[in-house]
């Protein structure tokens, strides 16, 4: 029993890395992902800021999960998240003004980052504090790694440079090779492909990375539809289709048509799903 609990705790921590990577598998938080991944420095800054907010808000929301009335849960989550984002924003402004200028509006916009609200809704509001904290750490690391990977690709091909800096400490690739104002791509008789640091390049790299991660996980035998996020949709007949924890539940629409037909239909849909 204890071992099972331990394993699931480890699972909650590691699932955010690849299997349920928030950016590349759950496709959450796409806006900051596309907007700030023009340099590695920005990506790490954004990743760390969002991770801190995610961990703190997961802990607080998990602690308050029995107090928050379900009807007003989203405003409550937002208030908690906004409090932490304000704190992070003030800290960044005070200690890393360069990062604050680089991230601009995307720093306060962490409030509406789908990853944080999504984890609050799908995980922290249903699970104990310890597991929620682990979920936050795992998802935060997954987010940061995905952002950094994307930023590395975009920055290298787009400007022929990499800013390997955290909070202003570190170096850049051009300094490392002593290239001065030139860049690595020019040094090997190529040119920076500036579309990579423009918005379309962001979409291209994002799409290719999502495809790559899907390919890798399908090779391992994972089913892309098996994601731990709750998804309620309405199908063509008005039945509610609930997808959660890899299971699909079809709730037939309540109406006056003969029940026999309805059950047959929903059975078929469940089989198809």
């Amino acid at each position, binding site marked *: 029993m204890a071992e099972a609990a331990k394993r699931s705790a480890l699972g909650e921590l590691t699932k955010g890395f690849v299997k349920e990577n928030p950016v590349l598998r759950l496709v959450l938080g796409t806006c900051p992902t596309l907007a700030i991944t023009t340099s590695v420095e920005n990506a790490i800054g954004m990743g760390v800021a969002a991770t801190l907010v995610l961990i703190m808000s997961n802990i607080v929301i998990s602690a308050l999960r029995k107090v928050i009335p379900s009807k007003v849960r989203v405003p409550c989550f937002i208030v908690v998240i906004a409090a932490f984002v304000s704190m992070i924003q003030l800290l960044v402004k005070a200690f890393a003004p360069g990062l604050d200028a680089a991230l601009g509006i995307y720093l306060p916009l962490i409030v509406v980052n789908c990853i944080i609200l999504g984890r609050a809704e799908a995980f922290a509001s249903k699970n104990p504090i310890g597991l929620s904290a682990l979920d936050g750490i795992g998802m935060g690391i997954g987010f940061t790694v995905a952002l950094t990977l994307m930023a590395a690709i975009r920055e290298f091909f787009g400007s022929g440079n990499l800013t390997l800096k955290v909070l202003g400490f570190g170096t850049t690739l051009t300094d490392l090779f002593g290239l001065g104002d030139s860049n690595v791509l020019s040094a090997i008789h190529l*040119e920076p*492909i*500036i*579309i*990579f640091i*423009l918005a*379309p390049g962001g979409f*291209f790299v994002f799409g290719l990375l999502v*495809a790559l991660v899907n390919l890798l996980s399908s090779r391992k035998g994972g089913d892309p539809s098996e994601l731990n996020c709750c998804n309620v949709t309405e199908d063509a007949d008005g039945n509610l289709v609930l997808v959660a924890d890899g299971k699909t539940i079809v709730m037939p629409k309540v109406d006056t048509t003969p029940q026999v037909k309805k059950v047959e239909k929903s059975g078929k849909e469940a089989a198809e799903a």
Partner: protein
Amino acid sequence: MIDTKKLTVSASPHQKSAATTTRIMLDVIIALVPAGIAAVLVFGLRALAVILVSVVSCVLAEFLSRKAMKKEDTVTDLSAIVTGLLLAYNLPAGIPFWIVALGAVVAIVVIKQMFGGIGQNFINPALGARVILMSAFPGRMSAGAFADTNRIGWGVDTVTGATPMGLVGLDGVKEGAPTLMEMFLGTTSGCIGEVSALALLLGGIYLMVRKVISPIIPCTFVATVAIFCTFAQGFDMYAVAYELLGGGLFLGAIFMATDYTTSPITNKGKLIAGIFCGVVTCIIRLWGSLPEGVSFSIILMNVFVPYFEDWTAPTPFGFIKEKKQKKAKEETKA
């Protein structure tokens, strides 16, 4: 005994025409040859080298990507060669070879094969690659290159001045622009395949005679540009002729807007597509920040094709409209 060979029972179609993808693509390649010859005459052997690099990269990319996806090989349908030719025709002659190869990979792998290969791409691969290269290397792509027509050699005198499309605007044709005859024959600066309107028209007529393309899109496209510019330029016919012969209008209208996969199948849809391309081209040329708008107009048209087809879907024989159907029902009730 029944001769089973003579009595084959199968689903339709029972009669097939000789038109295969390979044959159609071969026709397009033949139609593109005059423009290629004109390009070599105007720009020298550097243009030929760009064309070869583009075609070889496209074919290699097609072969390798199909192999990597474990799907049947489609190199023999020649579509990759057509894409390679069209891509090269959309590049300036002085462009570095690695950029050409990169464009070929983008066209074949990203735009064509990732969406399912031939017949599945939603925009024209060569044009998509051109637009991506234009955003990626704006300086390289707008550098006009023009060599002396009397000298066929390797070198290209890169003219970093304005291409013909940079010399015409709402205030008419500026000074220093080439004459209309030069533009018709193609001895001006510009992309490899777009300079000679004569060579492109020859290819276009060949395709129309062979019934590979329908004349609807090219004609409406060019006519729309002509009419639009006539009014926008205040009936300055010299400027209008300049607009028609300059830039990639003929190349785009004849070879790229008519791509089977990315243009409407219905005749009315083709009409709408041609007019749409013409209007967008003129708007970008006259009021946009870019000198040329043909490629963007065709790509925008490609994206709207499902709607054009939807609006112009032909009514099946015997189909009753919804209103009439209601009426008929009411009548039967009464």
